[in-house]
């Protein structure tokens, strides 16, 4: 009798464990308190002071630093750690919130020495995919926009006033990523000795829903086979617009190659049907 009861209990427990993932779990954070949540988490767990601002579906985090770079022009080690902690806190809140924003933009500024901004822009669904291991780490890093610029306006700005906070669209974000990837491709170790990247600009025009990419990439040396900048740009653009983000609010792509003087214009459908062998 006791043995039967034991078996029943064990069975029920197993079912409970098995179906526990179906339970509804309350989100830890509320969207209305997202700014304080991020600030408090950074303060309590890492003793870091940040400014957080919400701009519709984009969350801005500003972190001032006295020394962003070390003497060799690279990010200071301690700063890198602290930036990592801030990003982690940001991720924790964004992922466990009832209504997550679409984008997060993190700005770290050197307010004392150089007056520089380190900008990191990320797409929240990409973050979720990475956490669930649907995309690899490398792919996730490719889908984040990272930029470093000298900006004297950052000097002395502890609150981040010099940064204009706006709501980012997916199309704008895609354009940024495409531009970053094109630049990265032709300045990689494999091709940097063969190409000179003079200009790469990508932008989205919401009025005519046109994605424009302007490239000026010159061949320095000849060595077959080398990729064609125009074709490569097309490939990258197609990948991010049609496969990764599947942009809906986009109707055509225009690529201007200043080096060859060629211009390519493709409709969304034509872009989707393109194949590269």
């Amino acid at each position, binding site marked *: 009798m006791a043995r039967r009861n034991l078996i029943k209990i064990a069975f029920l427990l197993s079912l409970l*464990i*098995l179906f*526990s*993932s179906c*339970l509804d*779990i*309350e*989100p*830890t*954070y509320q969207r209305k308190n997202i700014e304080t949540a991020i600030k408090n988490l950074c303060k309590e767990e890492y003793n870091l002071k940040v400014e957080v601002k919400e701009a519709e579906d984009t969350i801005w985090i500003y972190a001032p630093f006295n020394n962003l770079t070390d003497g060799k022009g690279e990010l200071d080690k301690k700063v890198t750690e602290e930036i990592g902690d801030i990003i982690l806190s940001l991720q*924790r*809140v964004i*992922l*466990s919130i009832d209504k997550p924003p679409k984008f997060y933009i993190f700005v770290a500024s050197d307010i004392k020495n150089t007056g520089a901004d380190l900008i990191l822009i990320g797409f929240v669904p990409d973050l979720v995919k990475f*956490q*669930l291991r649907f995309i690899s780490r490398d792919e996730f890093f490719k889908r984040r926009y990272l930029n470093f610029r000298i900006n004297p306006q950052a000097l002395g700005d502890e609150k981040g006033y010099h940064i204009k906070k706006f709501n980012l669209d997916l199309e704008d974000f895609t354009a940024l990523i495409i531009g970053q990837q094109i630049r990265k491709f032709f300045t990689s170790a494999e091709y940097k000795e063969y190409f000179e990247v003079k200009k790469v600009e990508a932008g989205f025009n919401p009025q005519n829903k046109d994605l424009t990419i302007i490239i000026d990439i010159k061949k320095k040396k000849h060595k077959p086979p080398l990729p064609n900048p125009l074709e490569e740009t097309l490939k990258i653009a197609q990948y991010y617009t049609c496969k990764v983000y599947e942009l809906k609010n986009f109707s055509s792509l225009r690529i201007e190659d200043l080096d060859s003087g060629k211009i390519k214009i493709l409709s969304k459908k034509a872009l989707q049907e393109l194949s590269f062998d």
Partner: protein
Amino acid sequence: MDTRKLKKFIKLHWIKLTLLIIGSILLILVTYMVILGIKSFITLESFYKKMTLAGIPIQLLFSIVTAFIFATIYTFMWIHMIYGGGLAKLGQKKIKSTQVNVKWEDVVGMESVKKEVAEVVNLIKDRAYLRKIGGKIIKGVLMVGPPGCGKTYLAKAIATETGLPFLAAVGSEFIGMFVGQGAARMKNLFKEARTLAELQGGCIIFIDEIDSIARPRVGVTGLGGGISYNATINQLLTELDGLRQEENNIVVIAATNVKEDELDPALMRAGRFDRKIYVGKPGLEDRRKLFAYYLKKTNYETSIDCSILARKTVGFSPADIANMVREASLIAVRNQREKIIYKDLSEAYDRVVFGLKSEITLSEREKVWVAYHEAGHAIIAYLTHPTDDVIKASIIPRKGALGYTGQRPPEEIHIYNKEHLLANIKTYLASFVAEKLKFGTTSAGVDQDFAYALQLAHQMVWRWGMGESGLLGNFYTLGSSSLWSQNFPLNISEKTKEKLDEDTQKIIQTCLKDVEEILTRERELLEYFAQELLKKEELEYDEIIEIFKKYGKEKPNKDSLPA
């Protein structure tokens, strides 16, 4: 509670207490970790909580699959060990009786042995009937006999006739590097046999060369080799008829070349190796049948008379006969013949008995020496031996010897009388005398001859009471023996030993004197014989007879041998 009682309690149950304490500590640790884990889980953000919970079913599935795989592997290994695998796995093969396939008709000759064995087979086959009467099945059958006489072959025939599974092992397989390995292997063997017996109604275990593990148990000294050895025999004794014995249909057949009394007496008692079957060398008729059997399997001249071959091969075992036929077929092939002829068998006989011709090249002087040496043997053997014939004399080096003289009785001899033994001694000493007569000196070539002569004379006096002093008895039995020391007499006075040794020397000196007389008298014959040997290098039986006939010497034993 009384401290003494407490101490006693701890002393008796310290293992349980230790396990209980360790178990409790582990339980507390596990509980603490679970509580910590739950606490950490509660403090997790909702996204990570969901991730953790979502991962549980898949982790559970992986755990179940992994557990299933390991359980399967473990079960498979366990079954494999039960059915004869594992570290103590023997090299024994589980053989079906149909695979052995040695039929009764394939066992040639040894009719009396077959009769005894047939009885054993019937007892095994009719064990159900036997049990009804209330009889017990025989446990063990011991086959004793010289090597190559068909013990293993018989065992296979028993397996085929009974139709039972056949587990074969060799005694040396039970001797392992580690203590207890032999006993473990023995246990495994019988475990497997019991399983097979349950499944198939019976099982035969055949242990060849059982003397390697069945000699009398030893005292434990040194590095524990004795412990292991004893453990193996003890295990065998237990398996055959021990305390935990239950009735099972397992019959153990063992084969050995040593005498029964050299094995552990506990094994030989009734209830263990109940039946002892002596498998000896085949007689004349059996040899004839064996030749017919083996030749039938080859392409041979039908004119070959197996009776002649049988008479020529006195003292041959069935293995020797098979070897001889095999050699003959190889010789025929080498000579590009399609059939075996008598000459091939003759040559094969020489190879088996005398060995292959050696690479040694003798100088002329050495050849002369060897020729006189062998001539001495041949003449004395021919003239004095009551039974044996001189069948060959040779100065071609074979088998490590520079020459040889072959002698053989025309039929089996089972009783060796004094004259026979003395004639052997004289034959051995003949080489020494021949060398002395011819060269005025002797050589180290008499080494082996002297060894045999002395050994024989020694045995005549020390074992068979043939000494002149009249001292009787088998003085060897007054010695001690153990695994590590040879038999030597202990309980004999020095005076007696002296007398016995004197008798031994007297025999040798008397024989020597006789040989000197004969060879001096037959000097011409000696010279002629030696010269013939030098000329032809090898003299066959008929050539030898011709030489002696020429000098008017007839062999007292009139049984003519085939060439």
